[in-house]
Protein backbone atom coordinates (compact mmCIF):
# COMPACT_ATOMS: atom_id res chain seq x y z
CA UNK A 1 0.00 0.00 0.00
CA UNK A 2 2.75 2.49 0.92
CA UNK A 3 4.52 1.42 -2.24
CA UNK A 4 1.39 2.34 -4.18
CA UNK A 5 1.07 5.72 -2.42
CA UNK A 6 4.73 6.52 -3.06
CA UNK A 7 4.14 6.41 -6.85
CA UNK A 8 7.78 5.59 -7.47
CA UNK A 9 8.88 8.88 -5.88
CA UNK A 10 6.45 11.01 -7.90
CA UNK A 11 3.71 11.12 -5.23
CA UNK A 12 4.10 14.91 -4.87
CA UNK A 13 3.07 15.33 -8.53
CA UNK A 14 0.65 12.46 -9.21
CA UNK A 15 -1.67 12.85 -6.21
CA UNK A 16 -2.12 16.65 -6.41
CA UNK A 17 -2.98 16.22 -10.10
CA UNK A 18 -5.71 13.70 -9.21
CA UNK A 19 -6.88 15.92 -6.33
CA UNK A 20 -7.30 18.93 -8.66
CA UNK A 21 -9.20 16.77 -11.17
CA UNK A 22 -11.69 15.58 -8.55
CA UNK A 23 -12.08 18.86 -6.64
CA UNK A 24 -12.77 20.86 -9.81
CA UNK A 25 -15.26 18.32 -11.17
CA UNK A 26 -17.11 17.91 -7.85
CA UNK A 27 -17.43 21.71 -7.54
CA UNK A 28 -18.64 21.88 -11.16
CA UNK A 29 -21.22 19.19 -10.51
CA UNK A 30 -22.63 20.70 -7.31
CA UNK A 31 -22.84 24.33 -8.48
CA UNK A 32 -26.05 24.07 -10.60
CA UNK A 33 -27.93 22.22 -7.83
CA UNK A 34 -27.32 25.12 -5.45
CA UNK A 35 -28.34 27.62 -8.14
CA UNK A 36 -31.52 25.66 -8.91
CA UNK A 37 -32.62 25.54 -5.26
CA UNK A 38 -32.00 29.28 -4.85
CA UNK A 39 -34.02 30.09 -7.97
CA UNK A 40 -36.99 28.00 -6.84
CA UNK A 41 -36.86 29.59 -3.36
CA UNK A 42 -36.91 33.08 -4.88
CA UNK A 43 -39.76 32.12 -7.20
CA UNK A 44 -41.82 30.81 -4.27
CA UNK A 45 -41.18 34.03 -2.36
CA UNK A 46 -42.33 36.06 -5.37
CA UNK A 47 -45.49 33.98 -5.74
CA UNK A 48 -46.23 34.34 -2.02
CA UNK A 49 -45.86 38.14 -2.26
CA UNK A 50 -48.15 38.18 -5.28
CA UNK A 51 -50.93 36.22 -3.59
CA UNK A 52 -50.62 38.33 -0.42
CA UNK A 53 -51.05 41.50 -2.48
CA UNK A 54 -54.11 40.06 -4.19
CA UNK A 55 -55.70 39.24 -0.82
CA UNK A 56 -55.19 42.81 0.42
CA UNK A 57 -56.86 44.42 -2.60
CA UNK A 58 -58.82 41.88 -4.68
CA UNK A 59 -59.16 44.28 -7.65
CA UNK A 60 -55.58 45.15 -8.62
CA UNK A 61 -55.24 48.82 -9.55
CA UNK A 62 -52.20 48.43 -11.83
Amino acid at each position, binding site marked *: MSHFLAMGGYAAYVWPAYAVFFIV*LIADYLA*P*GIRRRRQLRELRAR*LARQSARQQRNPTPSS
Partner: protein
Amino acid sequence: MANWIPLWLHKLGSPPIFYRFAGTLRPWALGLALLFGAAALYGGLVLAPADYQQGDAYRIIFIHVPSAWMSLFIYGVMALASFIALVWRIKLAEVVAMESAPIGAAFTFVTLVTGSLWGKPMWGTWWTWDARLTSELVLLFLYLGVIGLYHAFEDRRQGARAAAFLAIVGIVNVPIVHFSVNWWNTLHQGSTVRILGPSKMSGDMLWPLLTMMLATKLYYIASLFGRVRADLLALESGKDWVRQIAEAEERR
Protein backbone atom coordinates in the same frame (compact mmCIF):
# COMPACT_ATOMS: atom_id res chain seq x y z
CA MET B 1 -39.14 24.67 -38.63
CA ALA B 2 -38.18 22.46 -41.57
CA ASN B 3 -40.34 19.37 -41.85
CA TRP B 4 -37.45 16.92 -42.20
CA ILE B 5 -36.74 17.30 -38.51
CA PRO B 6 -38.50 14.46 -36.71
CA LEU B 7 -41.33 15.45 -34.41
CA TRP B 8 -39.74 13.97 -31.29
CA LEU B 9 -36.60 16.01 -31.81
CA HIS B 10 -38.69 19.12 -32.29
CA LYS B 11 -40.57 18.37 -29.07
CA LEU B 12 -37.32 17.78 -27.19
CA GLY B 13 -36.42 21.38 -27.90
CA SER B 14 -39.32 22.57 -25.75
CA PRO B 15 -38.05 23.62 -22.30
CA PRO B 16 -40.49 21.65 -20.06
CA ILE B 17 -39.99 18.43 -22.04
CA PHE B 18 -36.22 18.79 -22.08
CA TYR B 19 -36.26 19.59 -18.36
CA ARG B 20 -37.93 16.25 -17.60
CA PHE B 21 -35.82 14.35 -20.16
CA ALA B 22 -32.59 15.74 -18.68
CA GLY B 23 -33.77 14.98 -15.16
CA THR B 24 -34.33 11.32 -16.04
CA LEU B 25 -31.09 10.88 -17.94
CA ARG B 26 -28.77 12.76 -15.58
CA PRO B 27 -28.47 10.17 -12.76
CA TRP B 28 -27.78 7.42 -15.33
CA ALA B 29 -25.06 9.45 -17.00
CA LEU B 30 -23.44 10.23 -13.66
CA GLY B 31 -23.71 6.62 -12.47
CA LEU B 32 -22.08 5.29 -15.64
CA ALA B 33 -19.42 8.02 -15.46
CA LEU B 34 -18.52 6.98 -11.91
CA LEU B 35 -18.50 3.30 -12.87
CA PHE B 36 -16.25 3.77 -15.90
CA GLY B 37 -14.15 6.33 -14.02
CA ALA B 38 -13.53 3.89 -11.16
CA ALA B 39 -12.59 1.12 -13.60
CA ALA B 40 -10.24 3.47 -15.46
CA LEU B 41 -8.58 4.62 -12.23
CA TYR B 42 -8.05 1.03 -11.11
CA GLY B 43 -6.62 0.12 -14.50
CA GLY B 44 -4.46 3.23 -14.70
CA LEU B 45 -3.15 3.51 -11.17
CA VAL B 46 -2.94 -0.15 -10.14
CA LEU B 47 -2.92 -2.54 -13.11
CA ALA B 48 -0.91 -0.59 -15.69
CA PRO B 49 2.88 -0.99 -15.35
CA ALA B 50 5.22 1.95 -14.79
CA ASP B 51 6.61 3.64 -17.88
CA TYR B 52 10.19 2.66 -18.76
CA GLN B 53 11.25 6.31 -19.14
CA GLN B 54 8.89 8.30 -16.94
CA GLY B 55 8.35 5.82 -14.09
CA ASP B 56 5.07 6.37 -12.25
CA ALA B 57 4.83 10.08 -13.12
CA TYR B 58 3.25 9.18 -16.47
CA ARG B 59 0.09 8.07 -14.61
CA ILE B 60 -1.04 11.72 -14.75
CA ILE B 61 -1.85 10.91 -18.41
CA PHE B 62 -5.05 9.13 -17.35
CA ILE B 63 -6.60 12.44 -16.28
CA HIS B 64 -4.53 14.93 -18.28
CA VAL B 65 -5.26 13.58 -21.75
CA PRO B 66 -9.02 12.89 -21.25
CA SER B 67 -9.38 16.41 -19.79
CA ALA B 68 -7.56 17.88 -22.78
CA TRP B 69 -9.80 15.95 -25.19
CA MET B 70 -12.85 17.20 -23.32
CA SER B 71 -11.60 20.81 -23.42
CA LEU B 72 -11.60 20.59 -27.24
CA PHE B 73 -14.73 18.43 -27.56
CA ILE B 74 -16.81 20.74 -25.35
CA TYR B 75 -15.60 23.75 -27.33
CA GLY B 76 -16.83 22.03 -30.49
CA VAL B 77 -20.23 21.33 -28.92
CA MET B 78 -20.42 24.92 -27.66
CA ALA B 79 -19.58 26.37 -31.08
CA LEU B 80 -22.08 24.07 -32.84
CA ALA B 81 -24.85 24.94 -30.37
CA SER B 82 -23.94 28.62 -30.75
CA PHE B 83 -24.28 28.33 -34.52
CA ILE B 84 -27.70 26.67 -34.19
CA ALA B 85 -28.73 29.32 -31.65
CA LEU B 86 -27.73 32.19 -33.94
CA VAL B 87 -29.24 30.76 -37.12
CA TRP B 88 -32.46 29.17 -35.88
CA ARG B 89 -32.93 31.13 -32.62
CA ILE B 90 -33.61 27.98 -30.61
CA LYS B 91 -33.63 28.83 -26.92
CA LEU B 92 -32.40 25.38 -25.88
CA ALA B 93 -29.36 25.65 -28.16
CA GLU B 94 -28.48 28.96 -26.53
CA VAL B 95 -28.71 27.39 -23.09
CA VAL B 96 -26.62 24.37 -24.11
CA ALA B 97 -23.92 26.63 -25.56
CA MET B 98 -23.75 28.95 -22.57
CA GLU B 99 -23.86 26.17 -19.97
CA SER B 100 -21.15 24.19 -21.79
CA ALA B 101 -18.68 27.04 -21.29
CA PRO B 102 -18.11 26.63 -17.53
CA ILE B 103 -17.64 22.84 -17.90
CA GLY B 104 -15.19 23.36 -20.76
CA ALA B 105 -13.34 25.97 -18.70
CA ALA B 106 -13.15 23.52 -15.79
CA PHE B 107 -11.64 20.79 -18.02
CA THR B 108 -9.21 23.26 -19.61
CA PHE B 109 -8.10 24.40 -16.15
CA VAL B 110 -7.61 20.77 -15.07
CA THR B 111 -5.61 20.12 -18.26
CA LEU B 112 -3.28 23.07 -17.58
CA VAL B 113 -2.77 22.27 -13.88
CA THR B 114 -2.21 18.52 -14.36
CA GLY B 115 0.08 19.27 -17.31
CA SER B 116 2.05 21.63 -15.11
CA LEU B 117 2.33 18.99 -12.39
CA TRP B 118 3.54 16.53 -15.02
CA GLY B 119 5.93 19.01 -16.64
CA LYS B 120 7.80 19.83 -13.45
CA PRO B 121 9.33 16.36 -12.86
CA MET B 122 9.69 15.50 -16.59
CA TRP B 123 10.81 18.78 -18.21
CA GLY B 124 12.11 20.53 -15.09
CA THR B 125 9.66 23.43 -15.42
CA TRP B 126 6.06 24.15 -14.44
CA TRP B 127 5.39 26.21 -17.53
CA THR B 128 6.94 27.04 -20.88
CA TRP B 129 5.61 29.19 -23.71
CA ASP B 130 5.51 26.46 -26.33
CA ALA B 131 2.79 26.13 -28.95
CA ARG B 132 0.68 23.43 -27.27
CA LEU B 133 0.68 25.03 -23.82
CA THR B 134 0.08 28.55 -25.10
CA SER B 135 -2.79 27.56 -27.40
CA GLU B 136 -4.42 25.62 -24.54
CA LEU B 137 -4.11 28.73 -22.36
CA VAL B 138 -5.75 30.76 -25.14
CA LEU B 139 -8.57 28.17 -25.10
CA LEU B 140 -9.09 28.85 -21.38
CA PHE B 141 -9.26 32.59 -22.07
CA LEU B 142 -11.78 32.00 -24.87
CA TYR B 143 -13.99 30.04 -22.46
CA LEU B 144 -13.66 32.80 -19.85
CA GLY B 145 -14.43 35.39 -22.53
CA VAL B 146 -17.63 33.57 -23.51
CA ILE B 147 -18.70 33.30 -19.85
CA GLY B 148 -17.86 36.95 -19.17
CA LEU B 149 -19.62 38.27 -22.27
CA TYR B 150 -22.73 36.21 -21.49
CA HIS B 151 -22.98 37.77 -18.03
CA ALA B 152 -22.08 41.30 -19.17
CA PHE B 153 -25.55 41.96 -20.61
CA GLU B 154 -28.64 42.84 -18.61
CA ASP B 155 -30.77 40.81 -21.03
CA ARG B 156 -29.66 37.17 -20.87
CA ARG B 157 -30.69 36.27 -24.41
CA GLN B 158 -28.86 39.25 -25.84
CA GLY B 159 -25.79 38.22 -23.84
CA ALA B 160 -26.12 34.67 -25.12
CA ARG B 161 -26.15 35.86 -28.74
CA ALA B 162 -23.06 38.01 -28.29
CA ALA B 163 -21.22 35.21 -26.49
CA ALA B 164 -22.33 32.68 -29.14
CA PHE B 165 -20.68 34.84 -31.77
CA LEU B 166 -17.41 34.88 -29.82
CA ALA B 167 -17.64 31.09 -29.39
CA ILE B 168 -17.97 30.60 -33.17
CA VAL B 169 -15.05 32.92 -33.95
CA GLY B 170 -12.90 31.19 -31.34
CA ILE B 171 -13.31 27.76 -32.99
CA VAL B 172 -10.19 28.52 -35.11
CA ASN B 173 -8.17 27.85 -31.96
CA VAL B 174 -9.36 24.23 -31.68
CA PRO B 175 -7.39 22.85 -34.69
CA ILE B 176 -4.42 25.00 -33.60
CA VAL B 177 -4.38 23.25 -30.21
CA HIS B 178 -4.76 19.84 -31.82
CA PHE B 179 -2.10 20.21 -34.53
CA SER B 180 0.28 22.44 -32.55
CA VAL B 181 2.54 19.46 -31.75
CA ASN B 182 2.88 18.72 -35.48
CA TRP B 183 3.11 22.26 -36.84
CA TRP B 184 5.68 23.59 -34.38
CA ASN B 185 8.67 22.14 -32.67
CA THR B 186 7.27 21.82 -29.15
CA LEU B 187 8.50 20.54 -25.82
CA HIS B 188 5.15 18.82 -25.46
CA GLN B 189 5.19 15.23 -26.72
CA GLY B 190 3.23 14.27 -29.84
CA SER B 191 -0.06 12.39 -29.91
CA THR B 192 0.10 8.95 -28.35
CA VAL B 193 -3.39 7.83 -29.28
CA ARG B 194 -4.36 8.13 -32.92
CA ILE B 195 -7.70 7.55 -34.58
CA LEU B 196 -6.08 6.72 -37.91
CA GLY B 197 -3.36 4.14 -37.61
CA PRO B 198 -2.09 2.23 -34.60
CA SER B 199 -1.65 4.00 -31.25
CA LYS B 200 1.83 4.28 -29.81
CA MET B 201 0.86 2.80 -26.48
CA SER B 202 0.57 -0.69 -25.04
CA GLY B 203 -2.90 -2.13 -24.45
CA ASP B 204 -2.75 -2.18 -20.66
CA MET B 205 -2.13 1.57 -20.64
CA LEU B 206 -4.48 2.32 -23.54
CA TRP B 207 -7.71 0.81 -22.19
CA PRO B 208 -7.74 2.86 -18.93
CA LEU B 209 -7.13 6.00 -21.01
CA LEU B 210 -10.02 5.26 -23.38
CA THR B 211 -12.29 4.22 -20.50
CA MET B 212 -11.53 7.51 -18.76
CA MET B 213 -12.36 9.33 -21.98
CA LEU B 214 -15.76 7.62 -21.98
CA ALA B 215 -16.24 8.50 -18.29
CA THR B 216 -15.47 12.19 -18.89
CA LYS B 217 -17.90 12.27 -21.84
CA LEU B 218 -20.65 10.81 -19.64
CA TYR B 219 -19.72 13.23 -16.87
CA TYR B 220 -20.12 16.09 -19.33
CA ILE B 221 -23.65 14.93 -20.16
CA ALA B 222 -24.54 14.72 -16.46
CA SER B 223 -23.06 18.11 -15.62
CA LEU B 224 -24.47 19.82 -18.71
CA PHE B 225 -28.00 18.50 -18.07
CA GLY B 226 -27.89 19.73 -14.47
CA ARG B 227 -26.78 23.17 -15.61
CA VAL B 228 -29.33 23.33 -18.44
CA ARG B 229 -32.12 22.42 -16.02
CA ALA B 230 -31.14 25.22 -13.63
CA ASP B 231 -30.88 27.68 -16.50
CA LEU B 232 -34.25 26.72 -18.01
CA LEU B 233 -35.92 27.35 -14.65
CA ALA B 234 -34.39 30.83 -14.53
CA LEU B 235 -35.29 31.66 -18.15
CA GLU B 236 -38.86 30.43 -17.87
CA SER B 237 -39.57 31.50 -14.28
CA GLY B 238 -42.81 33.22 -15.35
CA LYS B 239 -44.24 30.08 -16.95
CA ASP B 240 -46.72 27.68 -15.40
CA TRP B 241 -44.55 24.56 -15.59
CA VAL B 242 -41.82 26.24 -13.50
CA ARG B 243 -44.40 27.41 -10.97
CA GLN B 244 -45.67 23.85 -10.63
CA ILE B 245 -42.13 22.59 -9.96
CA ALA B 246 -41.55 25.32 -7.36
CA GLU B 247 -44.78 24.41 -5.58
CA ALA B 248 -44.11 20.68 -5.77
CA GLU B 249 -40.66 21.13 -4.18
CA GLU B 250 -42.10 23.17 -1.34
CA ARG B 251 -44.41 20.35 -0.32
CA ARG B 252 -41.49 17.93 -0.01
